[in-house]
């Protein structure tokens, strides 16, 4: 946690209100996100109990598995989920623009530009918390290898038609969510805690109700007490007033309400199966319907508060202006979406269980680049974030006091002006440290030459002990045009205030890696190419 972040948390604790960590919204928020509030059953990994899902805050679709251990009912739930999610996801597939993408020409081996389709917008899934992200991954994993009767007539328990496809999409969303700054699938608690610091630990921030209470407490209440209320308050029957955002449910709810309701449902179902005449069957069917409705009501009662909290969170985030560089990141999300759309259309097999060496290395490298890019973009977009970087010595803002013209030693001397700044920040500048500033959207680089008054400023400037300001001399290195004289506006003038960063503005990606089929001997050689088989059915799969 950075110093400024710690300070914000302390101020939140003291004032009882969450403190802003950002002045703009650093994550893309779609116009029409799909909100997904899933619940899971205790005791079995990945057994959904129900969900509220939809794009209309006033009309969520309630999906319930009355007996979560029943595989047929689970498939019915997943089919219903696919009916909501897939049309939403597919809804963005048709609207495309033409974009250029560089690729290696298979014949010449050269990099060439090709025109490809890029979807103009992409779907966005929002879940309440990080556990929700994991649940999306788990659902994806549990579905994508399933076979439908159409794909494989011999499969013993064929999945409903669209379920494997839903699994592939959820897997894609879950994997994309691991890329820093991506917005195809996000957790509301992450979104909120990126923009506000509550006076509690980051672990406690994972409670959506408590986090919202800190950010937007009910009238007159302090955020701290509202958060405690959200976490702990129970009604007369011992149930939490603010049910956890899930997917795990409160044990008191499981034991006192859910388990008896499921048991009634089971009894009603057994009784219906045993009915031997039409009249009895009708009556018992009515009982079964009642039992099912009870469970539906229970699930609705636990998901609806979270559903409303999700939309409150969306409202709060929409109150922040969009960060200028967010569009760049969303474009990358659109590429990701378009890419997966194309893979599905091309009939490629589902994502493998485990990444091969090259895929894993490519993902890691892409995420590290994305992380560095995100950190740079957030700082450039937001003075409050930049303040944190300045405080930690990774950037400094200063006023130009002097500009002295100088030239490089080459045959055709280029301008290398020396610019002197007075700054109150204390950047970690070493010999010839490179620094960057934003010049009309492009980074201009300079190198640190020295402190103007070595004896006084070096000590004060280097870090920490001295107060006051120091005088930094930089040599500008580029973006001054080709001529002998720098282009107008490319050299800061005395009196101008400039913010320099020690980090790059557009970090480059790592080097290219071999193709998976060229995986070297050090990494086990090329991976097996055969498509993966679905998991075999075990005794535990058929209870």
């Amino acid at each position, binding site marked *: 946690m950075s110093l400024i972040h710690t300070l914000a948390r302390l101020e939140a604790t003291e004032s009882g209100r969450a403190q802003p960590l950002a002045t703009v919204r650093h994550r893309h928020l779609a116009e029409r996100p799909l909100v997904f509030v899933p619940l899971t059953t205790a005791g079995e990994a990945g057994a959904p109990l129900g969900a509220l899902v939809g794009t209309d805050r006033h009309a969520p679709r309630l999906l319930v598995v009355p007996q979560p251990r029943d595989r047929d009912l689970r498939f019915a739930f997943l089919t219903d989920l696919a009916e909501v999610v897939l049309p939403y996801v597919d809804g963005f597939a048709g609207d495309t623009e033409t974009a250029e993408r560089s690729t290696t020409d298979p014949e010449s081996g050269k990099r060439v530009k090709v025109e490809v389709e890029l979807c103009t917008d992409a779907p966005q899934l929002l879940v309440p918390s990080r556990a929700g992200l994991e649940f999306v991954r788990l659902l994806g994993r549990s579905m994508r290898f399933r076979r439908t009767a159409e794909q494989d007539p011999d499969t013993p328990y064929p999945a409903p038609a669209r379920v494997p496809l839903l699994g592939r999409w959820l897997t894609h969303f879950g994997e994309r969510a691991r890329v820093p700054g991506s917005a195809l699938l996000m957790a509301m608690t992450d979104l909120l805690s990126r923009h506000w610091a509550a006076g509690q630990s980051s672990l406690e921030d994972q409670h959506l109700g408590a986090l919202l209470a800190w950010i937007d407490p009910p009238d007159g209440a302090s955020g701290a007490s509202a958060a405690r209320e959200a976490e702990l308050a129970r009604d007369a029957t011992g149930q939490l007033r603010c049910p956890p955002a899930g997917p795990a449910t409160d044990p008191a709810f499981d034991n006192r309400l859910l388990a008896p309701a499921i048991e009634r449902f089971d009894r009603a179902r057994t009784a219906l199966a045993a009915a031997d005449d039409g009249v009895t069957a009708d009556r018992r069917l009515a009982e079964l319907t009642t039992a099912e409705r009870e469970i539906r009501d229970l699930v609705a009662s636990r998901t609806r508060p979270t559903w409303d909290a999700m939309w409150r969170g969306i409202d709060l985030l929409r109150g922040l202006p969009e960060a200028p560089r967010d569009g760049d990141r969303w474009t990358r999300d659109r590429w990701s979406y378009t890419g997966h759309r194309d893979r599905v259309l091309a009939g490629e097999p589902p994502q493998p269980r*485990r990444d091969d060496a*090259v895929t894993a290395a490519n993902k890691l490298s892409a995420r*590290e680049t994305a992380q560095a890019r995100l950190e740079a973009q957030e700082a450039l977009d937001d003075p409050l974030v930049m303040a944190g970087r300045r405080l930690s010595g990774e950037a400094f803002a200063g006023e130009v006091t002097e500009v002295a013209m100088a030239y490089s030693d080459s045959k055709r001397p280029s301008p290398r002006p020396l610019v002197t700044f007075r700054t109150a920040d204390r950047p970690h500048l070493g010999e010839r440290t490179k620094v960057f500033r934003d010049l009309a959207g492009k980074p201009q680089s300079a190198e640190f030459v020295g402190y103007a008054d070595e004896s006084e400023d070096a000590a*004060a400037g*280097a*870090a920490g002990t001295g107060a006051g300001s120091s005088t930094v001399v930089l040599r500008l290195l580029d973006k001054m045009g080709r001529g002998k004289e720098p282009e107008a506006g490319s050299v800061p003038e005395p009196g101008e205030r400039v913010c320099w960063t020690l980090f790059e503005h557009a970090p480059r990606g790592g*080097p290219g890696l*071999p193709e998976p089929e060229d995986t070297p001997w*050090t990494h086990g050689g090329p991976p097996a190419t055969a498509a993966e088989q679905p998991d075999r059915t075990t005794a535990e799969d058929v209870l």
Partner: protein
Amino acid sequence: MTTAEDRVNPAPEPFDPAAEAGRATDAILHDTLHGTSRGVVVDSPPGAGKSTLVVNAALRLAGAGRPLMIVAQTNAQVDDLVLRLAEKDPSLPVGRLHSSDPDPYDRALDDLEQVRKSAKAGDLAGLDVVISTAAKWAHVSGTDPWPHAIVDEAYQMRSDGLLAVAGLFERALFVGDPGQLDPFSIVGAEQWAGLSHDPSASAVTTLLAHNPQLPQHRLPVSWRLPASAAPLVSDAFYPYTRFRSGTDHGDRTLRFGVPSDGSGPDRVIDEAAMSGWGLLELPARHTPRTDPEAVRAVASVVRRLLDRGGATTSERTTDPVPLTADRIAVGTAHRDQAAAVRSALAELGVTGVTVDTANRLQGREYDVTVMLHPLSGRPDATAFHLETGRLCVLASRHRHACIVVCRAGVAELLDDHPSTEPVQLGVTVKFPDGWEAMQHTWDVWSNHRVPMRT
């Protein structure tokens, strides 16, 4: 150098470091030059002559007419290797592949005629030895594979870094120190934990997971660490692959012309000069990372080291050598701590002393080091601060003495924070863990404790 005769008539003395090291080196070179496996792995404790081995192996491979590429991790390491190769064999044509940034290599290389420098691998084709960083090699493509490679600091290289360059060579010698800092990634990589090709693991981990039959050697003697330090570093950080010091007690001395003034810094300097270790203990207190008192204590120890006219003797020289600023280093865990120490030193008028974090001190060697203990003043012991490699690097850079500056209370802090790293299936548990190494070193250093009187 060992001969067949040595094996028939083993030396009567219990331990002859030169002979032991020679035997290990011979076995390594034999496997490298004549072995049949595609790789050879060499584990080297701190200062065990890793660079010497790399240079020797390079010369032997080049001498055998086998063109060679060398992969190091940083430009400083690459330049250092080029200079060492040139020193050993001035006639050997060496290629230095460098980046296209300004000032990509050490200017000293310009004085060497036999060293060709280029940013393009094609320009260096045909040279006996071509050296560059892993990052630069990763951008090379379209060349014929080299018959042989040496990968230096392979434990500090990430698995994905090796993946990018492994296609460039057919066989390789991997050399590195398993006790130093593991490579890290700035994003989570738990997703791949336990996979044999986890891209965030070290290159050697991945290599051995896929090729468990590769011959593994280790260098048994540390020439850097003095006899006072080798047993502790070996016990605490290499408990299953012990090593010895190449020198004995008394082979090296550190003496000061100016007597102690009785202050904490002077007394801890004397303790360290005598025993090889010194612990300057400040009163227990929770502090920010850049604890001003501890930083000041570090700076005054360095100031006094220089003021008291220190001189060292060692097996390398006959006459005492003055202890100068360039032979002293200060190591910290965090960059802001290093920056704070630098400015405190500047205030005391000290220049020329290296101050850096453990990450950047890896592979470097000094006569005396002063270390700000990673747990000093902390209210908690996180995985970062408990990392074995970090402490190992800080405690193994010196030839004569190491002075630890720390707030009291480390033992209690450790007791309060047993290590609780999540267990990942399929991941080999590293021994010793940082917690154990911290306890062990703290135990020993406590015997060299000097309280700081304020």
